[in-house]
């Protein structure tokens, strides 16, 4: 029963900290208010681009790991990924969006990224 405390731990403060950290601090739904709809759309588009960028990076890492890339391929991949990353930074700045904002909550499936 709650009155007697049904939570047992020796590290209450640490768990409070982690539980609070794990709660989102930003709106999960995209605000459809006309004034903010532009920013909402930008957020959605950039979120999807960011997802693709991260997937590309991960794929590249797997190939490096497998050792299946030539020197030249590594060079090209590095250049592409670098450009992608700096382009994303630019876009984020233009729209005034932070890393944590570029995420989507998929309900029972958790966060997109």
């Amino acid at each position, binding site marked *: 029963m*709650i*009155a007697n405390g049904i939570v047992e731990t020796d590290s209450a403060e640490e768990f409070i900290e*982690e539980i609070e950290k*794990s709660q989102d601090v930003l709106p999960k739904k995209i605000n459809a208010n006309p004034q903010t709809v532009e920013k909402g759309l930008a957020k959605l588009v950039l979120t999807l681009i960011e997802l693709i960028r991260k997937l590309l990076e991960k794929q590249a890492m797997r190939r490096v790991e497998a050792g299946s890339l030539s020197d030249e391929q590594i060079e090209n*991949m590095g250049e592409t990924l*670098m450009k992608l990353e700096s382009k994303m930074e630019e876009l984020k700045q233009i729209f005034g969006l932070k890393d944590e904002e570029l995420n989507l909550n998929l309900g029972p499936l*958790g966060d997109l990224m």
Partner: protein
Amino acid sequence: MKLYLYGIIDSSDQIKESIYGLEGVGVYNISFRDIGAVVSEISQPIQGVTEGAVLEHETVVEKLMANFTILPVRFQTIIDGRDNLLSMMQSYYKDFKDNLARLYNKLEFGIKVIWPADKVKENIIKALNEGEQRVLESDGSASKRFIKEKFEKYKIDKEFETKADKFIKVMDIFFSKFAAEKKLEKLKTRDLLLDAVYLVEKDKENDFREAFEHIKSADPNLKYLFSGPWPPYNFVVLLRKTGLLRDTEQADLFDKVTRCQTLVGADSI
């Protein structure tokens, strides 16, 4: 008459115990066939989420849990009148029945584990540096250096995840022995290694607690939180959206939901 809903129980009987809910009003059971909705009459809309109201709500659900199987309803669910409530019960009847049967005689327990993420990462970096080196030519090209840095980070993150999986698997083996169902969330934050809920049969409660004590004493570097018994908040599966699904579609959706649960880690650690 506005009815504040606390939960659905597997009984059409009146509630013998005097239980008081929000606004200090007594709760009662509105029966529908062989199940019931436990409500209290509410006069004014709830002003936001207050600690007092939340605890009043939870206390009602827990008191009911002592004598019934209860499907706990989300906080601040208010139905507009008895007729509407009965019609809701009709729509959800099968769903409620299925859940009540599945959750009969079971309790929910929560286990959270904190691990020293920084230390784990440090040890990984140490091990990677001592171990076999993956030689990427660092000939100064910015692109190559970019890849090298990304790759090192990738290796560390990958090893970090692998270690988390290993820890969780060991713990889960112990707990699962006494659990009918479970939901595991790995690395909700870097330090929150595990956030798990287990559905345990009442007569296995002591075994489950023992398993926890055993795990707790096994590794002093980890921090543990044990909570429960709770009403089965995390184990109610509702498929019915009023009017949106036909029965065959509901069956398909259940399969998909089960598969999703597996994908997000409920069973695959």
